[in-house]
């Protein structure tokens, strides 16, 4: 066998560095060049407090997409959330999107509940049925101060 020379050692070293970087980037940074294709849909909420870009979208507990963008509709003061949904997941037009919290202090995510309609949502369509974020503080204060 040929003796290991300097170039080969340097090559192995750089390769190891590059592999480490790409493992971190793909596994953890969600930078995946081989990502599955997605299609965009929108949903309007009266409050999304705590939801962020990149928040997960779950259907039956399985992550099927993420929030790509959040903007405010200055006309009717509603939050417009853009969702990227996995191409393989078909959503009915009466799907319900609700904002939930993982645990008591966990991250906010969007929970999708499938409907029974025949009509399937396509790219750019809007999910009509939504439930806003539930604020724990509001619930607690309602419970404390509504005892009259």
């Amino acid at each position, binding site marked *: 066998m040929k003796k290991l020379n300097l170039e080969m050692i340097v090559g192995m*070293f750089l390769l*190891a*560095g590059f592999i*480490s*970087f790409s493992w*971190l980037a793909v*596994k*953890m*940074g969600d*930078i995946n060049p081989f990502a599955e294709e997605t299609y965009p849909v929108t949903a309007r909420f009266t409050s999304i407090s705590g939801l962020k870009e990149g928040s997960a979208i779950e259907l039956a507990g399985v992550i099927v997409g993420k929030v790509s963008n959040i903007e405010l509709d200055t006309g009717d003061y509603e939050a417009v959330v853009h969702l990227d949904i996995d191409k393989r997941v078909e959503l009915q037009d009466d799907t319900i999107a609700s904002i939930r919290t993982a645990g008591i202090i966990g991250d906010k995510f969007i929970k999708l509940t499938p409907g029974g309609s025949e009509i399937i949502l396509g790219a750019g369509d809007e999910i009509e049925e939504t439930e806003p974020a539930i604020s724990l503080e509001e619930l607690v204060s309602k419970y404390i101060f509504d005892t009259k």
Partner: protein
Amino acid sequence: MLKLVEKLGGDFLYLLETTGRMGIFFASAIANIFKPPVSLYAIVRQIYFFGARSLVVILIVGLFTGMVLGLQGYHNLKQFGSEDVLGSAVALSLIQELGPVLTALMVIGRAGSAICAEIGIMRHSEQIDALECMAINPVKYLVAPKFVAALVSMPALTFIFNIIGIFGGYLAGVVLLDVAEGAYFQGMYKSVEWVDIRLCLVKSIIFGLLIVWITTFKGYFLHLNRTGVFGAEGVSRITTDAVVFSSVSILVWDYLIGSIILS
């Protein structure tokens, strides 16, 4: 009294001069990287010295850093019953902080001091003047390959450190202390974002530049050293200086980069 003012003024002027010289040195080193002809073999040799030879020490330090994080994180998190976030705690502290900083400190100790002493001795034994006499640009010949090597090696070393550290945390947390394996890795995948990895990358590149800049600068200008001690003692002094100064600047810049990028 007048002596004191004179000394103060002299110190200030010296500081000003050194700062300016450092800036010019940096600019000329960067400019010389791109000036043809580029000697690839010199760069490869420097990467071998700067990076590949540092690998063993990085592996050992990374493994034990990760294991300590796993162990201490486990005992602290256990009080709150949330051992499940151990993976993300280990990964985040490694990627954001400990990976770049500890790698930089180890590289300063192993390669930075050697670079400084090497160039210092070349300056002292007039080899640099000899290069100039032969119309070889010493900055291009000696310094520029080291800059490239540092720029390439530091990120590679840092990411290897991160991976080994995460594996060390896995050993301590999952294998020895029975944290669920799935919780360790899933928590990690979920909580580490691209921002953290980018922060780590930016930090490692800047640290690499700082290390090679300060150590080569100190060695290259051995003869302008203000202590008036040259020769063997002078080399030992500037090497100490270079190690201390670059370690301190790493920690200062660590804070600065963090505050710029995370804000």
